[in-house]
């Protein structure tokens, strides 16, 4: 029995290890993807750490009392770099803070010291500029909150409350930056994942469509018919485009519904226009996002068609297309946590060169209102798609469409089959 079991186990292991899909899914993806993701996350956390190394914060002291001075001293002793702002009122203080390129402001209102002296609860206000650039911004405002909390603990029992405010596009908003950050993160995480899933699924569909024509030998029949080969290629692509359009529309409907759900996080009584403040996509943003996703899908489909045309069966096509997935998933992870323009120039170029980064960037731009990024991406991806289509058309016009065969085990050596 043991000998039989050993033989079966040995056969199973050989079969599984030699299956390209297993090789890709269980070995190549974890071995390549996870180290890359680790490196990405490492760079994100380094940036976060750097940003909070020195907490630079403006302080507008309208109290000029003993306790306000003690507060400033305590904050300085805890390592904060305090920039004192002289202003006549809060609005002027906010303006001066922005003019001084500061991102955070602590406002000590008049009567702060008197309230504490009289044993009443005093009030402190903080303002943080919110641009939606990612984790670094949130970490900075959290660092200031931590310093204030540390001071409070030293003055116990709880002498003052802190009212957290955000400044969005120059306008003060009575919402803590953490709420806005959570709002943004829920968009920034769900959007890239959804886009990556749609692209991957569309590529699998297109690859299967071409490879099954080769596997079933229907392509050979099709190529012998009096039809222009470019028409065959376009037919394949338009079929996939319809699927891509359905995918893009389904995505947009789902996304709009999702955004509607998460905006309930922002208190409605604030009475602010979220679109105007850059916290929700505008109608133009939605349109550009849809176009960007569509052209990216088209480009992915064209690439899948070209690549799968080199394979001889569906299994090989799906496995080879799978090698593109890291190119889709790496920008996805990176753009979840970081603003692309905060990266080093070579990394920026790399991310922008990947066509599948652009629908994610367009989704972000739809919220921030920076439509030029989305439009630029659409133009770039369209040019990339035309180039891929040109290569595909050239390839379809030759006999290579029938004779080129890539097997995963022989990636470096395409072979011709003689019958």
């Amino acid at each position, binding site marked *: 029995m043991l000998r039989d079991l050993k033989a079966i186990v040995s056969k199973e292991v050989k079969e599984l290890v030699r299956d390209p899909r297993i090789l890709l899914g269980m070995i190549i993806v974890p071995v390549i993807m996870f180290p890359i993701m680790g490196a990405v996350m490492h760079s994100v956390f380094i940036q976060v750490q750097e940003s909070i190394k020195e907490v630079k914060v403006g302080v507008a002291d309208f109290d000029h009392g003993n306790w306000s001075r003690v507060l400033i001293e305590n904050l300085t002793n805890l390592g904060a770099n305090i920039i004192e702002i002289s202003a006549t009122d809060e609005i002027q203080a906010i303006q001066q803070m922005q003019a001084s390129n500061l991102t955070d402001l602590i406002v000590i209102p008049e009567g702060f010291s008197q309230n504490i002296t009289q044993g009443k609860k005093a009030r402190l206000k903080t303002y943080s500029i919110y641009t939606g650039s990612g984790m670094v911004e949130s970490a900075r405002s959290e660092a200031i909150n931590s310093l204030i909390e540390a001071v409070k603990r030293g003055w116990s029992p709880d002498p003052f409350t802190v009212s957290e405010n955000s400044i969005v596009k120059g306008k003060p908003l009575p919402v803590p930056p953490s709420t806005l950050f959570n709002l943004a993160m829920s968009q920034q995480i769900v959007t890239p994942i959804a886009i990556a899933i749609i692209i991957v699924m569309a590529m699998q569909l297109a690859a299967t469509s071409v490879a099954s024509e080769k596997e079933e030998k*229907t392509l050979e029949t099709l190529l012998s018919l*009096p039809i222009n080969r470019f028409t065959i290629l376009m037919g394949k692509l338009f079929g996939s485009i319809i699927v891509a359009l359905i995918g893009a529309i389904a995505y947009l409907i789902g996304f709009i519904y999702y955004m509607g759900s998460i905006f309930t996080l922002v208190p409605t009584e604030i009475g602010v226009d979220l679109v105007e403040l850059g916290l929700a996509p505008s109608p133009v943003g939605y349109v550009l996002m849809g176009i960007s996703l569509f052209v990216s899908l088209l480009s992915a489909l064209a690439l899948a068609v070209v690549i799968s045309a080199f394979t001889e069966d569906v299994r090989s096509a799906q496995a080879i297309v799978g090698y593109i997935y890291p190119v889709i998933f790496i920008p996805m992870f990176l753009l979840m946590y970081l603003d692309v323009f905060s990266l080093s120039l070579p990394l920026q170029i790399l991310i922008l060169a990947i066509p599948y980064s652009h629908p994610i960037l367009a989704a972000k731009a739809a919220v921030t209102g920076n439509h030029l990024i989305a439009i630029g991406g659409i133009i770039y991806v369209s040019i990339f798609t035309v180039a891929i289509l040109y290569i595909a058309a050239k390839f379809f016009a030759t006999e290579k469409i029938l004779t080129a065969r890539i097997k995963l085990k022989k990636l470096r050596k395409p072979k011709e089959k*003689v*019958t």
Partner: protein
Amino acid sequence: MAAVEVDDLVKVFGSIRALEGLSFRVEDGEIYGLIGPNGAGKTTALRIIATLLLPTSGRVEVFGLNVVEKADEVRKIISYLPEEAGAYKNLSGIEYLRFMASFNAESKDEAEAMVRDAVKISGLGERLHDRIKTYSKGMKRRLLVARALMTKPKLAILDEPTSGLDVVHSFYVRSIIKNYVKEFGVTVLLSSHNMLEVEYLCDKVALIHKGKIVAEGRPEELKTEYKAENLEEVFIKVTSYA
């Protein structure tokens, strides 16, 4: 004018020489068979004639049209049935026939007439309304042969038309080919490694071995010449000399 004229055809794939100066001529209205074992170069030759592959050197003409220079014209007058070809399994047989007819027909009426012919040729009756994925291998092959012949091509190129079929389906497919040629005067160029089938079907045969024709003639002439009882014996004798 010859239906097919192949002159000194060479095809090289990398380091492999698939065809080594192949030459033969198929007359109009003839059923011509290329016979040889697997890997002899039959499919490569048929694919070149069907405009799917380019010759490395040599000349191939179909009804006077060069298959390289006039590929589009050639495709209009031929019909090619690849070996072990499949069909779109999620379409019904009738949908498949309509789809294929649309590329050869000038009008909708002409396409429908082609489909009607194909229905008759295939003999699949009501099963044509079922999805192809439910067909047996034999039924699928009958559908594909019907597809290849429904356009009444000037030249039908059939690669191993009965390969892998049982006796009943093989007999049916052979009958289709024989009767159809008589009825419409279509020229047929087919390949097979079933020598008995070729002997039954073909007016003329060429024995192909390692990319070259080693013998050619009418089956009866070849049997007499090589003092053999059948073409299998002829092939063994010829290749042992070659």
